[in-house]
């Protein structure tokens, strides 16, 4: 009887709809990932394929974020220009952040779709580590109200 209850419970849990994961995209993993001015990460980007870059899949993205994380052997967090953005086959738009040498070892750089004229578009979220010293970090994208 107890086995039956456990089995039934497991089936109920499996049957419950899980939260959709399509609403967010985090790449690459945080563990020891260098961002340099030419390394790719994530799914292919359409624009500037010779730059350090990470792109999401296609969705109605709302927020594109690049987070620089310092510490350990890495620059803290690194000096350079970071370009969180949105793109499709026709255009790319974003904020061209300059990250100075005295930043904290943690910097979050965000851009929202409506503010760069790409609100409501089906597109890729992208982040470029455009130039500067190599650093560690990750890119994130959110659709709908998943982030903020």
């Amino acid at each position, binding site marked *: 009887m107890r086995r039956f209850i456990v089995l039934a419970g497991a089936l109920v849990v499996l049957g419950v709809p899980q939260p959709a994961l399509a609403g967010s995209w985090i790449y690459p993993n945080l563990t020891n990932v260098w961002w340099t001015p030419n390394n790719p990460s994530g799914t292919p980007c359409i*624009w500037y394929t010779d730059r350090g870059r990470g792109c999401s899949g296609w969705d109605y993205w709302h927020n594109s974020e690049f987070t620089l994380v310092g510490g350990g052997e890495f620059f803290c967090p690194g000096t350079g220009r970071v370009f969180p953005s949105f793109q499709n086959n026709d255009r790319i738009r*974003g904020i061209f952040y300059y990250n100075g040498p005295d930043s904290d070892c943690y910097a979050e750089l965000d851009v929202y779709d409506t503010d760069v004229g790409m609100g409501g578009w089906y597109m890729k979220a992208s982040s470029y580590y455009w130039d500067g010293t190599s650093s560690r970090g990750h890119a994130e994208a959110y659709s709908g109200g998943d982030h903020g």
Partner: protein
Amino acid sequence: MKKLIIIISLLIVLSFGAIVAASKSTDILALGGTDDQPVASSHGDLKSLHLIGRAGGRAFYRGVSSDSGATCIVVGSAERLGEPGASACGVDFPTTERPIFTFPLVGADAPSTELKLYRLDVVAIDGVAAVRVAGHTIPVVDNVASITFAQPQPLSPIQALDAKGKVIYEEGL
């Protein structure tokens, strides 16, 4: 006697804490602008938004990241107060080494791949009178400045100018 020592120690610790807090406030006041009003944030990842000022249809804020607790500089449309359009948290601003923080909206349209400047939003510390980019000089009023270009401009360095028009800082773009 022991109680007195404990009370005195406590007062010293509290005074030191107040001094530290005051010095942090001074940092923030360096870009206080004139409004400096608390504004409700429409995004959960940013809290404690305070309006620094408005310029060119844009609203500028300081805030705090809900994720990390880092101080943030935020900009968005002045028509949708409290809604961030771009934000930077944990950056090296405001400092004397970096007297301005810039939000350059750049992009490209196929088939050209040349990045161009569409808009520039700037937050500046006291003493910065104007910023210059692509041959345009934009006045800084209440610590903020903004320009939207009718025609996108080629990328060029952004300069901060003092009241005499002297370049006090330059940032590559």
